[in-house]
């Protein structure tokens, strides 16, 4: 795999916090134009992975290239929407000013805002469908709208890659749907590569092309067809999971409805799974026994 044809390339990458290995032996690549979910249980290192890709956390081993450059060196071409947009709840800035900071926020010195910059901000807000909210303060907007402001802010500098940490958490169903719709358009109309951290895949299933799953300290990448496997997802989440296909062709990931109380979960010990998964990167069949 060439570093020019793939958007994100992991080579035996590992991240530690102190002496504790969060994940290691990450060797996979994510193609341009894909929509990828990073999935895994709480504490598996999903946000850590995003931070490593942004170069905000150093690697303990291996290498990580994003947009053809070592992680952190192409951040001006990455749009990043952290989960903390919920923290802006009391911000006094207007939506428009917040989006503008995505364009001008890193510049020291006195620079009057240009007409072109204002037009760029308006364009991004129109694309996201929040142009009518430009003059509202962030504190006056709902969580879903505040998040779309954050997406517009990430979008305004024309990124090639958009990264979102838990974009659907804390949103009601309609806002989740609106966000997924925006992501689908960014991918289809602008050809943007998109990566999201998510713990619930269902809403994203229609647009996902693949997933990075963090299982027992190893990240793997697989195309969507291989990820949507009941056995794999059961290992991944540590609880019984079923993949259901409706007559319309929609797929859903659900906890098994009638799980018997006393039945032992289909789980391996950490050591066992580590053996199963070692050197089987991205094949998606690691769960076969």
């Amino acid at each position, binding site marked *: 795999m060439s570093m020019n044809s793939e958007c994100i390339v992991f080579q035996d990458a590992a991240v530690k916090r102190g002496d504790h290995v969060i994940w290691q032996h990450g060797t996979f690549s994510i193609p341009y134009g894909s929509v990828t979910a990073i999935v895994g249980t709480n504490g598996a290192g999903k946000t850590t992975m995003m931070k490593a890709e*942004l170069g*905000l956390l150093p690697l303990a081993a291996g290498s990580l290239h994003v947009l053809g450059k070592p992680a952190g060196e192409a*951040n*001006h071409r*990455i749009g*990043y*929407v*952290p989960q*903390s*947009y919920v*923290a*802006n709840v*009391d*911000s*006094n*800035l*207007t939506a428009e*000013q*917040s989006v503008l*900071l*995505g364009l*001008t*926020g*890193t*510049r*020291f*010195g*006195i*620079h009057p805002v240009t007409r072109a910059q204002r037009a760029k901000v308006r364009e991004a807000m129109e694309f996201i469908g929040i142009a009518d909210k430009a*003059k509202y*303060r962030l504190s006056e907007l709902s969580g879903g709208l505040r998040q779309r402001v*954050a997406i517009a*802010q*990430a979008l305004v500098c024309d990124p090639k890659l958009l990264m979102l940490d838990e974009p659907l958490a804390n949103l009601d169903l309609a806002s989740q749907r609106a966000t997924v719709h925006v992501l689908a358009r960014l991918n289809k109309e602008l050809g943007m590569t998109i990566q999201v951290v998510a713990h619930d895949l269902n809403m994203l299933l229609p647009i996902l092309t693949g997933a990075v799953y963090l299982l027992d300290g190893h990240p793997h990448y697989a195309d969507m067809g291989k990820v949507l496997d009941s056995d794999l997802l059961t290992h991944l989440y540590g609880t019984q999971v079923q993949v259901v296909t409706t007559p319309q062709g929609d797929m859903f990931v659900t906890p098994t409805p009638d799980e018997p109380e006393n039945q032992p979960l289909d789980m391996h010990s950490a050591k066992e799974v580590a053996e199963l998964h070692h050197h089987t990167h991205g094949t998606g069949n690691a769960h076969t026994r």
Partner: protein
Amino acid sequence: MNAIDFSFDPEWMSTLSAPFMMNAFVAGLCIALAAGVMGYFTIARRSTFAAHALAHIGLPGATGAVLLGLPVSLGMGVFALGGALVIGALGKRVSEREIATGTVLAFATGLGLFFARLSSSASQQMQSILFGSILTITDGQIIGFAIFDALLLILLAIIYRPLLFSSLDEQVAQAKGVPIGLMNVAFMAIMAGVITIAVPAVGTLLIFALVITPAAAANILAGSPLKAMIIASALCLISIWAGLVLSAMFPAPPSFIIVTISTLFWAIAKGVEALKSR
């Protein structure tokens, strides 16, 4: 007549034209400018408690300086700056710092009292450090205030956007290459300076009402940062100047009237906001 006398002083115009009053008015202008601008950022960065604490951390510096025969502002400034650099280096995650900040605040206040008791001159100055003494500001202090204001405005003009960006969302700003550690330390260091020049007006205990409260009222009235800063400075200036005039008319300490007016502005803004959102 009993001990409390709120009678109107008909000679107030002549009080106002005294030289020390002139100094107080000019000092008020310098303080309002610095407080209004930094108050906005303090609220945007959710660092209001840290700002309040800085004034108290400066207290032992102020009384210690009197003890050593040094200028009060020097001791105040050195201690506030030291505290600011420590708080700034610890990062912006205020919620995790509240207990540490509060503990240091209480200890510093106690230390300030201890230093004050060590000498009679420090003991005499204790009240003016705690509650302000805007009527005793000297020509030298005013020159210092003016220089500080000029430096503050130049520095803020340079770091304005990155500071605002890191105040809105530190993680995104960091990912985009804003040096957030430097922004934190720079913000806290400037804050220490603002506290140092504002303490002579209302003292360490009342400083919140002068630096934060006008900015909070301005935030309710204005949507853009620049407008909010201008309004905050204006409200702060009106509070100080009206405080000076009223304290010349009536026998009440200027600090009390300044803080009262500032609080009234905020209460009115809050009330109007509540009525609007109904």
